[in-house]
């Protein structure tokens, strides 16, 4: 049988290697490296963090410390679509909590959870700066504004 090494190469790992070699030797790169690693894998697994630690010569505890300090970093796999519901001040006074309730009820998940089919993850965020359109949710970065609980179902249907 001929060698099939090439097929065994994980494309995500190739990408991570490229990121690591681009940043290697530069100072203060841990946050952007973690951001790009998360972009590739969707979350930061222990293996990925260990690899970053080894390559950048930063203590594993430090990598883990930074990864857990910032709310952007996720240590477990997320759903295909990420719903961020804003409960900042403007959304709070304009009824964001009702929209959250509608989403929770529709998807049967709470803040920080993922639906059992892996389709959606739900996160509460403090402000995404679209206050003029409060209350808002952001799904995969698309902002949906002036929401009323009744519109939630229809919006979610667009994300298969």
């Amino acid at each position, binding site marked *: 049988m001929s060698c099939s090494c090439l097929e065994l190469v994980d494309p995500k790992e190739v990408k991570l290697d490229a990121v690591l070699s681009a940043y290697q030797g530069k100072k203060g790169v841990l946050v952007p490296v973690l951001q790009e690693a998360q972009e590739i894998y969707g979350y930061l697994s222990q293996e990925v963090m260990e690899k970053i630690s080894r390559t950048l010569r930063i203590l594993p505890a430090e990598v883990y410390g930074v990864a857990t300090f910032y709310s*952007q970093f996720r240590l477990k796999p997320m759903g295909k679509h990420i719903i961020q519901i804003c409960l*900042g*001040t*403007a959304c709070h006074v304009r009824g964001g909590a009702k929209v959250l309730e509608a989403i929770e009820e529709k998807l049967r998940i709470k803040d920080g959870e993922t639906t059992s089919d892996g389709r959606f993850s739900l996160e509460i965020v*403090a*402000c995404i700066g679209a206050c*003029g359109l409060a209350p808002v949710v952001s799904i995969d970065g698309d902002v949906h504004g002036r929401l009323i609980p009744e519109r939630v179902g229809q919006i979610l249907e667009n994300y298969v």
Partner: protein
Amino acid sequence: MKQEKGKEKRKILVCAGTGCLSTGALSLIQELNQEIEAQGLTEQVTVVPTGCHGFCEQGPTLIFEPEQTLYVQVKKQDISEIIDKEFKQDLRIERLLYQDPLTGKKTETFANTNFFVKQERIVLQNCGFIDPENIEDYLARDGYKGLMTALKQKSPDEVIEEVKKSGLRGRGGAGFPTGLKWSFCRQTHADKKYVICNADEGDPGAFMDRGVLEGDPHSVIEGMLIGAYGIGSDEGYIYCRAEYPLAIKHLKKAIKDAEEAGFLGENILGSGFNFKLYIRAGAGAFVCGEETALMASIEGKRGMPRARPPFPAQKGLWDKPTNINNVETWSSVPHILRRGAQWYTQYGTEKSKGTKIFALTGKVNNTGLVEVPMGITLREIIFDIGGGIQDNKKYKAVQIGGPSGGCLPESLLDLAVDYESLTSVGAMVGSGGLVVMDETTCMVDIARFFVNFSQKESCGKCTPCREGNKRMFEILDRITQGKGQLEDLEKLEKLARVIKDSSLCGLGQNAPNPVLASLKYFRDEFLSHILDNQCPAGVCTAFLSYHIDNELCKKCGLCVKNCPVNAISGDKHTPYSIDLETCIKCGICVEKCKFAAVVRSGKE
């Protein structure tokens, strides 16, 4: 505007800020381009996607240049009619014009709307009028002329002197004089110095910086270049929160274009001055808006503040002298250099010069970004520019300064807005979020909201902030649950003083402000919760009760169908009633009832 009417190609400026994008601006742009081509008008009209027009409530908005006709809440279906009427028949479409919420009058041009008339746009002057991804547009509106003035006509010391004379103070909230800050950093001797733009706009309810970064990124870069030249720095960072992807995209493009045009890099404009600029995306930690935490974050560490002194001007990023200013501050600088400190000082009050951008949100008719001279009253901002309270409700409070600020009552509406006046009443300019609240907002709930925010965002370094805010949250939560006691108010005030006095950074020092201000101005509401078992605004669920007014009830049964817990009974023959034991107080029945027969009251 300078354009001569009829000779210039006409423009349609489409707001493509985050707000309007979410209401369909992108499809409008496509549709406009298709329609212009279909009607053979490509020679006469161009479509320009711009940054935020500021008028978020009315989005998506279109402005036609040069006449400045404003169309609001435009839909895809309107496009062919717009092109036909506007460019073939020279007619306005009445229904798309902005209607004043108070007078009902229609206004034709953006400049004549009540929203715009009282504004003084300096920092926002390009926002919404240029394509932020096109450096030519910025140059056509005197872009980089401030830098040219600095490099060609002034020594670094003269640049700092000019900024000092302008009276510009830090727009990030604390209001420290910008020129003075620069001079500290200039005076420190070092082989390397950094300048940083703090674009980690984390205050909930604030999006001024987002507007500027998305709509006019070059103005921030130009300001940083001028500052770096004054201070003697050759490297800078823009630390922008990751929640603002469009801002980061526009900044990246702007930096690339500025490098190609020779405004960034080596020997800028032949002056011998070098400057390299990098972007760092934040990773979602509110405390990183604090300057020492922000620098730790750029260094790749956990973003935790450290004690000052040494101040960043002595020891900052990687222990080198560093100067940090916020987006709006940097963006004000090019105008000051180009038009002179003297010109800038005509705006504002004696101690607070120039203009400030506020993000006007909440229960106000015209939400959006407004830039006003310092010293304007809150009443003018909320009622003249903001068009008053939504749905003709009654004004209760305005929250200013985010989690570090406070809620101000009606009696303070005529307060002139500047750094000193706001601090004297227990609030602060902060970054500039103004969240308007009406009679249906509960002030105890709002105090709880802010303390909850601060206790979650506390980095945990100082015990009083980490533990104290948590305890304050628990007390406030208890009060909103109907389990408050009179001595809780004293406990809150005592805790607040300790947290303020013994926290290291601005987050902890200011976190109790929203509670203290609410206790000062809205103590009655706290007392109602504690003594009368009542939430006057009808917000806190624990106090709510519902009943059906049988005189208004038409026995349609809609409430019964919609009640998620089957708490409502009744039929054509027996009067409808709600079983309060079963009721979960969700309020769906109130929303569904077409005859206002379900009555919600804030008292159990």
